[in-house]
């Protein structure tokens, strides 16, 4: 009996240790960014492609004010309400004092400088595919943006999702830098795949999620319930989206659909960012969208 009990205790301890190991934050190799120099001019393209301002600019900001990444925008979800933090270069309230390695760990691993997990409302599940040089360039650009002294507000997340350590389970299950679209791609489609899967993170809203909040890769871009209100985010695979590549590119530039309806909801903010890209980048995104596997 005594032996059975001690075996059970041992198994329990092993399970706890495994759980602790699985949920541990996994930062990048400390030397991952050694020798990389950021280029702010190139970083501006990454900034608009990654859509940083769409979530981190103050709610309702337009024009130049979208470069002030004061945060405060609220995102309702099944797990509670997330509040976008201040990621301006303010050293006290923003991320001004961060090293490139700290910034890289946030972007690519969802790990904060203090070692805590970020919630995947911050789309590091997409940014995990970013090139390290692009991360360095993005930081160089963001370092030059206006500082905001607005303090970040806490997320309003209920137990048990309030346990940050549990995000480690999510990462164990879903954080994966493999490309979703595979096959024989043209150079333009390949660049579009990088833009969409690593930067513009379209899938975060356009792909349905399972019960634990992981993206269902078998239904990639096949549409999903609106995470923050009524209605559905549309299916943009060729099964439903019949627009030409030129029409998709025009939409991402002007917000006008081929029928001359205009973007609304969260997509209106997305278009404010994609409007800042080059025609070539929008054409590459459109080429990728046209190559998606049709899913009803």
């Amino acid at each position, binding site marked *: 009996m005594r032996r059975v009990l001690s075996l059970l205790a041992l198994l329990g301890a092993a399970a706890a240790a495994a759980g602790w190991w699985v949920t541990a934050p996994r930062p990048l190799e400390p030397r991952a960014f050694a020798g990389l120099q950021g280029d702010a001019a190139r970083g501006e393209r990454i900034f608009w492609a990654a859509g940083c301002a769409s979530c981190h600019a103050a709610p309702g900001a337009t024009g130049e004010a979208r470069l002030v990444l004061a945060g405060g925008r609220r995102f309702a979800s099944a797990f509670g309400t997330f509040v976008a933090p201040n990621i301006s270069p303010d050293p006290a309230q923003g991320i001004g004092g961060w090293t490139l390695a700290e910034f890289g760990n946030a972007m690519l691993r969802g790990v904060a400088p203090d070692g805590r997990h970020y919630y995947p409302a911050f789309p590091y599940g997409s940014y995990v595919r970013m090139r390290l040089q692009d991360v360095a360039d993005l930081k160089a650009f963001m370092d030059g943006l206006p500082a905001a002294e607005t303090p970040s507000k806490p997320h309003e997340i209920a137990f048990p999702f309030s346990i940050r350590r549990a995000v480690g389970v999510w990462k164990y299950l879903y954080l994966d830098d493999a490309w979703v679209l595979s096959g024989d791609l043209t150079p333009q489609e390949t660049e579009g795949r990088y833009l969409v899967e690593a930067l513009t993170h379209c899938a975060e809203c356009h792909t349905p999620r399972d019960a634990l909040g992981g993206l269902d890769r078998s239904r990639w871009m096949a549409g999903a319930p609106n995470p923050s209100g*009524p*209605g559905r985010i549309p299916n943009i695979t060729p099964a439903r989206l019949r627009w030409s590549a030129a029409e998709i590119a025009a939409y991402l530039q*002007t917000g006008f659909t081929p029928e*001359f309806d205009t*973007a*609304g909801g969260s997509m209106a903010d997305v*278009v404010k960012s994609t409007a800042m890209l080059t025609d070539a980048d929008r054409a590459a995104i459109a080429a990728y969208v046209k190559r998606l596997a049709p899913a009803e």
Partner: protein
Amino acid sequence: MALVRLATAAAVMAATLGVTAAAADPAIEAAIRARKAQFQLYAFHAGVVGGMVQGNRPYDAAAAKAAADNLVALSGLSRMFQWPEGSANDTVEGTRALPAIWANFDDFTAKHEALHAATVALAAVAGDGLDALRGAMGAVGGACSACHQAYRAP
């Protein structure tokens, strides 16, 4: 047996209530149809100007001006009739209008007035060439989106 009867009665009542809730007020339905028609006309005329801006049809000063004038007229329609209380998507099927419209009707009004101002600016330059048209049309699209962003479900 009594339990089965109770369950049947409950099911019938639930079905009846469901039907009652789904049968909308004809006046509300008519208002929703009317505003959808208005949006259809916006899109149709925006398409004339937008087609020129996007290079899908040749620039024609007279046609651009006529389409812009129609947008001015459409955005100048009184809002008194198409937006009755109780016509949001939380109570009625077949509309994407959010309840926030009626919670912030002053802001909704201001956004509609901003669209009207943008169409007036568009009409003023519609005959001045493609570059002028492009800038003014961008502002019209921005005014459309500002309202769709706040007040229309996806």
